[in-house]
């Protein structure tokens, strides 16, 4: 089985060739074009140029939609679940299958899933709505669905991004087994150790271009890194010596909050962040990060406990927190409080409409002063293009994030809550954000960094804890990643079960 492919737009001359019975990894940084490439394969994106052959036969790309892809034997498991959340696993498998007939029979559907489970050794619970499944279970259900459709090429887009190290260890052998049964498995990742553990061959993309294809056995981490980044892998920005730590500026005391789903309710959180330190909160998405962020942003009401700033409890509300000097920076533009349709100048002032007399006086909004302020921020933070009236939605991800950073950090808040601040950013922009965070810390602010990127937490934090099933658990200092993984999963001794 061969697929040869080269396309333009987000991709410029990228090639990928996958053989039957192999696990083929697709490696590249964020934004290198990996997802776009496989989306073309799955019929979701139409390329501007290029050829696609499946099973030795060329495909008419003008007519190649998801249905055609499925018929051709391409099965895709996306990074974000494409199961219908309100449906059970068996309903999800049944609804789009034309061969299933006109009637939906629950028992037959269940039997079919059970047969698949037995045949491939993948477990996914029946009778439960997809939205209530764990991420790992959902993923397995999606793989089952692809196999059910007769996929001969199975594509997994960053499957391990949302799994714990233990779950990853369980997934990789499954991929090998699937390959052994004759499928071609394409596995997208930017985690070198996993790729080396399971892939036969690796194709590296950099900025939309194919850099080369190598056999795993014939390469090593350094050269792969070089292919991926175009230079030797830098160590992450070295952590500078922590400034002398000051008084406690942010404290969570007995904080409890209801959860969006199972296992994410916050339970009895105790945390202190001092002036001049960064405390990192690591964890896997779905363990309470969103709830914690929302409480610290003043958007969610805790059911018990309190948040203290400089020793005094803060009443609920985004405005109250801001008035006490707490800033909130998020990697998700909407959660960062950025309105895409409004201009840079307006976004910079969005949180200040209630009380900032420099721009809002006696019921009037001083647009000229706002524009001046915006230009100053644009200059100071290097926002491109330097137009205060430009809609934030038209800026690139990195520049939009700079607007958020400018807004939150320009006033030197004494407390900053940063949540996944570099999500979706390219390396340059991420580095910029990290540098600003470190500078803020050195100036004496207290920073709570909540991030699902373990590397980010470990690199920036003076102290780190983990958020596991809604509880805060200490992270072993400088331990090996498997031990940390165990803690994140809640497997370490001494951690109470859910």
């Amino acid at each position: 089985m061969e697929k040869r492919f080269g396309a333009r737009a987000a991709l410029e001359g990228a090639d990928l060739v996958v053989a039957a019975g192999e696990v083929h990894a697709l490696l590249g940084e964020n934004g290198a074009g990996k997802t776009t490439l496989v989306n073309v394969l799955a019929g979701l994106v139409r390329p501007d140029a290029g050829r696609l052959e499946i099973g030795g036969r060329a495909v008419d790309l003008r007519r190649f939609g998801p249905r055609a892809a499925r018929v051709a034997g391409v099965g895709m498991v996306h990074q974000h679940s494409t199961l219908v959340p309100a449906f059970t696993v068996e309903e999800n498998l049944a609804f789009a299958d034309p061969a299933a007939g006109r009637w939906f029979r629950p028992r037959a559907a269940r039997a079919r899933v059970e047969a698949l489970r037995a045949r491939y050794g993948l477990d996914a619970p029946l009778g439960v709505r997809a939205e209530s499944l764990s991420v790992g279970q959902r993923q397995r259900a999606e793989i089952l669905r692809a196999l059910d459709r007769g996929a001969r090429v199975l594509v997994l887009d960053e499957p391990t991004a949302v799994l714990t190290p233990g779950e990853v260890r369980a997934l990789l052998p499954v991929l090998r087994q699937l390959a052994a049964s004759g499928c071609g498995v394409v596995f997208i990742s930017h985690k070198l150790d996993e790729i080396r553990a399971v892939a036969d061959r690796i194709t590296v993309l950099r900025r939309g271009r194919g850099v080369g294809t190598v056999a795993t056995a014939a390469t090593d981490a350094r050269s792969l890194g070089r292919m991926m980044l175009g230079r030797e892998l830098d160590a992450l920005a070295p952590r500078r010596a922590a400034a002398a730590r000051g008084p406690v500026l942010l404290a969570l005391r007995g904080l409890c909050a209801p959860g969006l789903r199972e296992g994410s309710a916050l339970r009895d959180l105790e945390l202190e962040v001092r002036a001049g330190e960064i405390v990192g909160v690591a964890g896997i998405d779905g363990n309470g990060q969103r709830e914690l962020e929302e409480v610290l942003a003043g958007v969610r009401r805790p059911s018990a406990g309190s948040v203290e700033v400089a020793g005094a409890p803060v009443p609920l509300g985004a405005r109250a927190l801001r008035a006490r000097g707490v800033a909130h920076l998020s990697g998700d533009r909407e959660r960062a409080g950025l309105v895409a349709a409004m201009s840079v100048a307006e976004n910079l002032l969005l949180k200040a409409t209630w009380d900032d007399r420099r721009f809002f006086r006696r019921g009037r909004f001083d647009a000229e002063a706002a524009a001046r302020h915006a230009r100053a921020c644009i200059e100071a933070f290097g926002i491109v293009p330097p137009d205060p009236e430009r809609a934030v939605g038209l800026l690139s991800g990195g520049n939009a994030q700079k607007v958020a950073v400018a807004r939150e950090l320009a006033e030197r808040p004494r407390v900053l809550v940063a949540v996944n601040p570099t999500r979706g950013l390219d390396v340059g922009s991420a580095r910029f954000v990290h540098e600003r965070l470190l500078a803020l810390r050195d100036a004496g602010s207290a920073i709570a960094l909540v991030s699902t990127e373990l590397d980010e937490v470990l690199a920036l934090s003076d102290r780190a804890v983990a958020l596991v099933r809604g509880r805060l658990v200490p992270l072993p200092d400088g331990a090996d990643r498997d031990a940390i993984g165990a803690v994140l999963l809640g497997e370490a001794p001494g951690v109470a079960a859910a």
Partner: protein
Amino acid sequence: MEALLEAALRLAAPLLLAALGELVVERAGVVNIGVEGMMLAGAFAAFAVAAATGSPALGVGAAAAAAVALGAVFAAAAVLGRADQIVVGTALNLLALGATGLALRALFEGGAPTAPGVADVALPGLAALPGVGPVLFRQSPFAYAALALCAGVALALARTRAGLVLRAVGEAARAADAEGVRVAAVRVAAVLFGAAAAGVAGSVLTLSQTHVFTEGMTAGRGFIALAVVVFGRWRPLGVLGAALFFGLASALQFRLQARGSDVPYPVFLMFPYAVTLAVLAFAAGRAQAPGDLGRPYAREGKAG
């Protein structure tokens, strides 16, 4: 008491028909507030065709056709064109109001005739059952149709693959698309079905409840049908219950009025709308709406 229940079901029939149609539309993820206009168009078409041909059956067919024509406009603009669904629905209501008024004038200048009525049908044997008999089995055919439609929709949604597909499109259009479902086609089909139901519901007004057409005679019934869908939590049985509830309220209103009451007439007329508001305020319905309700869908990276 029996008379009251019988009247309740009879009055609920048009609401139930329109609400079931809208239920299917909303389970597919589309909000059509143009139900009002479609009912009005159906009422007029039924009236005009039945009066001209003497056949109520042709009238019902014309009603469905007229409403489906409006539904096609809605589908083109809101589903395929991805325009805002609320706005397009409003436009259709205005259009129907104006067009039916125009047509009334144009076609019946000299004075409108009355349309032939549709007689009740009594099911033999069953109609004689004590208690339940006269209520359920000696009813207008529209009531039977509405009940049958309710059962049909319930069965189709839960037990057919087409029903699953429809629900998938309404809950998570992106997921359905990724599975190769033609989201737009499903939604267009749902809209046309809902329109046909609304049209037939309108024909009840001019063929069964009264036998004339007056400008704007639907008077908000289409909007009450929308409320019935919410109140019924987007489930066929719930919609049935809600429609019966409103039918009962209307029947009570007429009964009290006939008995001669000190309450002024306009207050009576206010009653169904006020009750609807109260019901919406106290029944928390938002949480169970289909996930993608009201959001136009477009696959990223592909033209239209």
